[in-house]
């Protein structure tokens, strides 16, 4: 089998040349872009909405904090039910038949009851914690289930919960709320590993994400998934506009209602990215410039000179 001959490409300078100062062009471009960036920075500044802390959440919406802490304790929270990489509560998403997350497995184990509630309370409330941990799993579930129902009936307000057999659960959650409002839970969630220096905010962020307070703030700042999500940023700023295609898929079916939506979007973007990178080798795709003749505009002077010279 013979190979197709490669198209010979003419020497760029065979079309004629003209003087050109590369270094001068770059210097002028650098000064111009720097000046434009300074002007934009001076006029528009940049957004910097302060982060939510566990303390500010607990103070602003104690009911949401308490409901979330209860969900962490009884294993019904988003993180508790997440699956890999945090636990084995579910399989994680699938891309076709492949459960990629499950294949990788639990690489960052998180036990929500221990990590978010019991361990932070252990030092200050050892009696309550031991009463809870020494009870059978059935008893624990009875207490948390009854208290969850009672909180629902009281519109989430622990002060309005009717009396009942909730064991140490109300007192534990009340103590945790106090710790959170005082600001100590922020530090405790960061230092649970026992190390002094910290830079990993996985625990406090997961706790915040399991509640509804952070999402309500994000919705107020047009950041939620159905508002083109994380390509936006707080305030009226362009954000990561270059993520438009990635974010676009989350707005349409089947991506926006599939249980495997994230994996599907990643699969789609992986295929599109490969097409983009390897476009020179893809017949048809590489001929689009011929069919949409923008090149006639770009090289119009060359074509004009060529035709007048013929």
């Amino acid at each position, binding site marked *: 089998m013979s190979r197709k001959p490669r198209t010979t490409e003419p020497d760029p300078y065979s079309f004629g040349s003209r003087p050109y100062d590369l270094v001068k062009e770059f210097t002028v471009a650098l000064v111009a872009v720097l000046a434009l960036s300074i002007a934009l920075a001076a006029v528009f500044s940049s957004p910097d*909405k302060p982060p939510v802390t566990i303390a500010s959440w607990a103070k602003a919406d104690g009911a949401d904090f308490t409901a979330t802490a209860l969900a962490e304790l009884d294993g019904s929270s988003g993180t508790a039910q997440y699956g890999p990489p945090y636990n084995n509560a579910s399989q994680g998403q699938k891309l076709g038949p492949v459960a990629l997350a499950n294949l990788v497995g639990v690489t960052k184990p998180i036990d929500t009851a221990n990590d978010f509630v019991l361990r932070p309370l252990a030092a200050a409330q050892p009696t309550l914690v031991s009463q809870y941990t020494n009870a059978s799993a059935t008893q624990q579930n009875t207490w948390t289930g009854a208290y969850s129902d009672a909180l629902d009936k009281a519109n989430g307000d622990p002060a309005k919960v009717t009396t009942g057999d909730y064991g140490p659960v109300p007192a534990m959650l009340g103590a945790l709320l106090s710790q959170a409002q005082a600001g100590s839970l922020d530090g405790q969630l960061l230092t649970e590993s026992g190390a002094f220096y910290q830079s990993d905010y996985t625990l406090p962020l997961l706790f915040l994400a399991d509640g509804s307070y952070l999402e309500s703030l994000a919705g107020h700042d047009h950041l939620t998934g159905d508002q083109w999500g994380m390509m936006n940023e707080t305030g009226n700023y362009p954000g990561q506009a270059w993520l438009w295609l990635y974010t676009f898929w989350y707005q349409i079916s089947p991506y926006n209602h599939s249980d495997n939506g994230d994996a599907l979007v990643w699969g789609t973007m992986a295929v599109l990215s490969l097409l983009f990178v390897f476009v020179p080798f893809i017949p048809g795709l590489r001929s689009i*410039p011929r069919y949409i003749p923008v*090149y006639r505009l770009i090289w119009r002077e060359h074509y004009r000179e060529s035709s007048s010279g013929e």
Partner: protein
Amino acid sequence: MSTREQAEAPSEPAEASGWTAAVRRRAVRELPPEKLLPDTQPKYVASWIYVFGVLTLAAFFVVLGSGAVLAIQGPSWWHASGTGHFFNSLHLWSVELFMAFMVIHLWGKFFMAAWRGRRALTWITGAVAFLGSIGTAFTGYLAQQNLDSQWIAVQSKDALNAVGIGGYFDAMNFGQMLMWHIVLLPAVVGILVVLHILMVRRHGVVPPLPLKSETTQEEQP
């Protein structure tokens, strides 16, 4: 010099051996100084679209410079200092310009079918640099230490976890994201940009597409 030394010395210097000499010979052969820093250019390079390549490079330098200033006093500085906030704004807007210029440059090169004439690798390095820049900007947003960072972290973790990456590339791990943002990804993008520019200089600017189709394979690399 003794008579014997004179006899042993070659009348013309023999081609030096060794890795260093081989690399030098290859570098000079592939990119002689007049090709690396030309003072002429092909006549057909006469459109505003050509400006966006150098504008992208210039914006990249402003991004690196403003990021370097932010690095001097650490990632929290800009929240407490007016000067720091200004440099953060400069960093943000230079990134916005960098990405805008790069997208225009990319579309321009696409419509020129600029991969023709053994320039496929030039396209590929540019395309991967674009994807790498998106990753660099993304980790920058995660390293801001504000509400945006928190929300982007908890949102993106679901996508990263869905494909099994989240356990190793944790958007909620500030230290890891900061390192990727200021060391790993800029190094990758920087190396790709250098390679991309060297390839442009080596192969020259892609010539115009023929107006009359002469072959069915004109757009192939």
